[in-house]
Structure formats: C-alpha cells, structure tokens
C-alpha cells in the first residue's frame, strides 16, 4: 500500500467506496425484489408440480385448477368461504412471524390456537344477554389470554433456561390436543347426541357478516391486527428490540436490550395472536368448539409466515393465497375427486422452494440462511429501524433457538 501515490490511493478509495456503495444499493434493490419474486416463483413451481400430480391421477390439471379458482373466488359466498379460511391463517402466520423476528421459532401455534378456541368458547357460552359490543371483544380477549398462557411456559423456558422453543412448543401442541379431546368430551361437551363438541355459542358472541354479504367482518379484525403488528414491529421501540434480539441477542445486550424480557414479549404476543386465530374461527365460522375443525391452521401458519417473508403484509398476501387454496381444494375434491391433501403438498413445496431459494440468494455472502451470526457480536449489529435492511427476513431462528 505504501508505494501508492497519495492521489492514486485516493482514487482507489473513491472507486472502492463507490463500488461498495453501488454494490450495496444494487444488492438492496435486488434483494427487495427477490423478497417478492422468490415466494412467487416458489408458489408457481409448487402449483406446476401439483398439476403434474393431478394429471398423473388421470384428471386434467387445467380443468382442476379452474375449478379451484372458481371454488375460491367464483361467487360472493365462495369468496366469503375463502376469507373464512384466510383469517385464521393471518393470525397464525403473524404469530409465527412475530416470534421468529424475535429469534424464537414458535412451532406451537396449533396448541396455542386450540387453547384460544377453548378460551373463546368458555366466554361465549357462559354469558347470556350480553351486548355484542362487549361479548365479542371479551371472547377474543379470552382467546388471546389462553393462547398467551400456553406460550408462556415454552417462552420462560427459552428466556430463562435457554431450552430450545422448537421442542417445547411442539410438545405443548400434543398436550393441548389431549386437553382439547378431553374438553369436548368432558366439561365442554354440549352438542346434541353426545357428539364431541361444545354447544352453540350465544348469538351475542358471534362475529357478524359484513352487511349480509356472506363475508365475515372478522376480515376487518385481521386487517387491523396486521396494521397493528406492522406498526409495532417497525415503528416502535418494542418492535425494534424484538427484531434486534432476533438478529443478534449479544449485540442486543450492548444496545441495552434485555434479551430474556424481549423473548418473553415476542413469545406472549405470538401466543396471543395464535390464540385469537382459534377464538375468531369459533366466533365467526364454526360457532362451537369442535376439535377437528381447527386442525391444520397452526402448522399452515408456519408456511404462511415463511412464505410471507416474516413481514405482516407478506403474511396477509400469503394467507390469502393459502386460504384460497384450501377453499378451492374443497371444490376440487367434490367436483374432480382430487383429495384435499394435494393442498398440503403444494403448501409444503412452496415453503421448501422458498427456503431453498432464500439459500441460493444469499449463497456464500450472508449468514441469513443459517444465522451463525447469532452469538457473534462482531458480525452483525442491530440496525436502525429506518434503514432499508432492517426489515430483512431472517430465515434463521434455529441457531438462536438451540
């Protein structure tokens, strides 16, 4: 370096910093569009493979997909059904996204959702003659509270003992399953003929339709929640702490953030969201607690969150996509005799391709694919919330979670 003339040195510096700047800019734009293109391409490939599977079973793929789209959006009532499928996914997707951004991979959405369903049912079958303006919020609050309680133990184990939430949240799903099975056969059983389900909830607790259109106004609650989570994550210090701890707990400590407290915050928030998913499903769609009706939403939430890039708006779009798939698949089963689980294959392929696509995108450059930066403060700093990269999806979580 010493043999370089000062002027030449300056020029080199100028160019290298310029290149860096340009490169950074370029990568940012590249990265920003990739956040949309990767999930879209992934979904397309998944749909193509799904089509091949349909074709291999002897049906026409094009015809089947037409049936699917019509089944999802063909009429106002079908749209209403799709939105009914979509709303719980928005909540479970947000639940996974919030926890993931906070460095905890919450796989317990299903259990928290079941508990939320139980909470909402308890409130909505026990208070007659209540004005809906009080009854509905009360039931939703109960759902959130029950979900929160169910997320509390895995959260505290992660925050205080460092026990991986991946296992504990999963185990709590199975425990919640058992509680649910017991509840609808035991204390909450109330359906006619001993069917394992609760009795119908009071009218006053039911979430009404939007002006008799067949579309539940639960979509409004979902939209407000998306906005709320967006503001919370990206415009408040609480959200900044959550994302900071998720990116790098050690750097978070230097920034004066207490990571165990933040982990608890994001975990409780996550549990509350998943609980609301279960509650709203009962208040808006099923009107009674019925174990099998809630199946699958919790796990699809993981797909929704990851495909949605862990961003609230992404979650909303992904939830619409997967909700439409679910409702369209029912038509496909009835009209084309194609088993509904085809949807789960398409879902899983989408998430696999998103994960693979994210890895290829950052190949050899960033640690975002595996998060080995989690315990190394030198590698990554908590970034300013206003900076463009601050809302980067961190497909890691696993490391922070070990």
């Amino acid at each position, binding site marked *: 370096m010493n043999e370089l003339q000062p002027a030449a040195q300056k020029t080199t510096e100028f160019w290298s910093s310029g290149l860096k700047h340009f490169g950074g800019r370029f990568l940012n734009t590249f990265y920003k569009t990739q956040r949309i293109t990767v999930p879209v391409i992934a979904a397309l490939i998944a749909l193509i493979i799904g089509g091949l599977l349909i074709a291999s079973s002897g049906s026409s793929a094009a015809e089947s997909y037409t049936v699917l789209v019509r089944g999802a959006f063909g009429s106002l009532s079908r749209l209403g059904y799709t939105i009914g499928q979509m709303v719980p996914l928005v909540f479970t997707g947000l639940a996974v996204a919030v926890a993931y951004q906070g460095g905890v991979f919450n796989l317990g959405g299903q259990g928290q959702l079941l508990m939320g369903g139980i909470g909402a049912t308890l409130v909505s079958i026990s208070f007659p003659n209540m004005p809906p303006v009080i009854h509905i919020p009360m039931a939703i609050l109960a759902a959130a509270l029950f979900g929160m309680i169910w997320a509390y133990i895995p959260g505290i184990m992660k925050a205080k003992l460092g026990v991986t939430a991946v*296992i504990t949240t999963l185990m709590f799903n199975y425990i919640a399953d058992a509680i649910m*099975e*017991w509840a609808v056969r035991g204390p909450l059983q109330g359906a006619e003929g001993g069917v394992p389900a609760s009795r119908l909830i009071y009218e006053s607790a039911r979430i009404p339709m939007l002006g008799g259109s067949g579309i539940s106004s639960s979509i409004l609650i979902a939209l407000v929640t998306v906005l709320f989570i967006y503001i919370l994550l990206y415009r408040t210090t609480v959200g900044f702490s959550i994302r900071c701890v998720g990116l790098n707990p050690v750097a978070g400590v230097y920034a004066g953030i207490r990571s165990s407290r933040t982990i608890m915050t994001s975990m409780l928030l996550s549990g509350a969201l998943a609980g609301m998913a279960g509650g709203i499903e009962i208040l808006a769609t099923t009107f009674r607690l019925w174990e099998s009706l809630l199946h699958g939403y919790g796990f699809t939430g993981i797909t929704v969150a990851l495909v949605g890039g862990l961003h609230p708006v992404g979650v909303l779009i992904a939830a619409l996509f997967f909700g439409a798939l679910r409702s369209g698949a029912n038509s496909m089963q009835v009209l084309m005799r194609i*088993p509904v689980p085809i949807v789960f294959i398409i879902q899983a392929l989408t998430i696999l391709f998103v994960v693979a696509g994210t890895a290829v995108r950052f*190949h*050899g450059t960033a640690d975002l694919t595996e998060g080995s930066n989690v315990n190394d403060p030198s590698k990554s700093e908590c970034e300013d919330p206003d900076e463009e990269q601050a809302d980067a999806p961190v*497909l*890691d979580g696993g490391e922070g979670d070990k």
Partner: protein
Amino acid sequence: MVEFLQILANPQFYVSVLRMATPLMLVALAGVLAERAGIITFSAEAFMLVGAFFGLLGSYFSDNVWVGFLTAMIGGGLFSLIYAFMVVTLKTNQIVTSVALILFSQGLTSYFFSSTFGVLLVPLQAPTLKPFAIPLLSKIPILGPILFNQLPIVYLALLMLPIVHFVLYKTTWGLNVRAVGDHPHAADTLGISVVRVRYQAIIITGLLGGIAGAFLSIGQLGTFIDNITGGRGFIAYCAIVFGRWTPIGAFLGSLLFGFADALQMRLQNFESVIPHQFYIAVPYILTVVLLATVVGKHRMPAASGKAFRREEH
C-alpha cells in the same frame, strides 16, 4: 398405586416398553451419528412418516412384511437425500428445512394414501411382523420372554447400540464424523470431505428412520393412519439431546420415553378419576420436564446446525 405396581410387576409390560422404545432407538441411535456430524436430526419425524407409508405400500402390495421394510428404507433414504441436499449443499437453515420437510411428508403421505386407497370403510390390513424366539436364550426365566422372544426389528434396535458406539468411537469414519461435527474446518484441512461425511450420516438416519416408521405402521398394526408417527421423531430427537449426544445416552433416553409411552397405554385401561387423555399427554409432559430440569447445560457438537463453508474461518 396398586394398579401401578400391578403394571410394573407384569413381565408383559416390559415387552411393550421395548416395543415402544424400538422406533425411538432406531432413529435416535442413527441420529446420534448425524448429530455428531453437525446435523440437527429434527427432520427424523419426516423420514419416519415417509417410512411408515412406504412400508405399508411395500407390505400390502407384495404381501411380505420384509419387502415393506425394504421400501420403507428406500422412502426414508430418498427423503433424507432431499434434506441432505438442502442443508449440506444449499446450506439452508436446518430447523426451517426440517419443518418444511415434515409438512411435505404429511401432505405427501396423506395425499397418496387417499389417492391410492380412496375412502376406506374397513382399515387396510397388511402383513405384520411376528415374534422370533431366539433358541435357548428365550428359555431364560423372566428375561427370556422379554428380551429374546421379540419382533425381529426390536433385536435390530438393541443391536444398534453396540454398532453405533463402535462405529462412532472405534472407526476412522466415526472419528471423521466427530471431527466434522466439532471442527469442520480442521477436518477439511486434514482432507476429510465434510460434505461427504454429512451426506452419509444423514442418509443413515433416513434409512433407519424409514425402518422406524415402518415399525409403527407394519410392525404390529398393519395399517397406516394420517400422521401415524405422532411426534415420535421429535421425541427421538429429544432422546438424543437428553442423552447428551452419546449412543448410550440416546439409547437410555429412548428407553425412558418407551417406558413412559407403555405406561400411559396401560394406565388408560384402568378406571380412574383422571381422564385418560391426561395419560396420553404424559410422554410429552415428560419431555418438557426433562428438557427443563436434566438437560440444562448442553454439550452439543460445536458445529451443530451450522452449514460448512470453506471460505469461512
């Protein structure tokens, strides 16, 4: 309490403990190899589910349970190859990839089960395993019927302990596995192919995961149910963690969970004030309690969960 002692005094109970522990042992012991090579075996749940389904297909269509176990190995092996490709070659996050693969295996098996067999009014019945009594040894009082008059796959699971222990600690390949898991860069410098060792370890987990899954479907039951594994792959993973990444530890961990599982099944049969759903939850509660109390400080392989990149230091 009396019922409890009654259960424990019955030799037949220990036969079922071993049977419940068998799939866990198979996966956990194979998984120890992958874990020691730095690969999280959370995805074992997917390998098992695919194995359970392929096992049923093979057994049902060939009318031979051993063909079923062979197809289960192929299914589990192929699935583990996807996992290996993603986490080793593409270097994706191992837990996220595992979750994606588990969801994929659930969709795949339930779609193909319903598209192959349609809606079933009577459950399918495929050939299952029969106990094989080892001459002489099975005549030993008490111990004989428990240990030496078992299903053949149970013997395989029991044999896995010495085999995996020997391979891991007494062979060059085992040394490579441990090197790759603890110091991949040092191993790489010494000319050990990190990628190859990790692929091998994952595929072994897939093959044995396939057998373990098939043990659930065609071991005794002879049929397939959606999501038949019911989290046993996760519990096997816990057995590894609980066993501190050693073969003997994973073996004992599997045995403990097998014990809990067999116990809850017996307890369910007794009339009591406690609802039987509580017993179903026992193994899962046990897992959480163990993770909270016993595990505490981990001694996990240093490079666990980290993809290997040559240019890093």
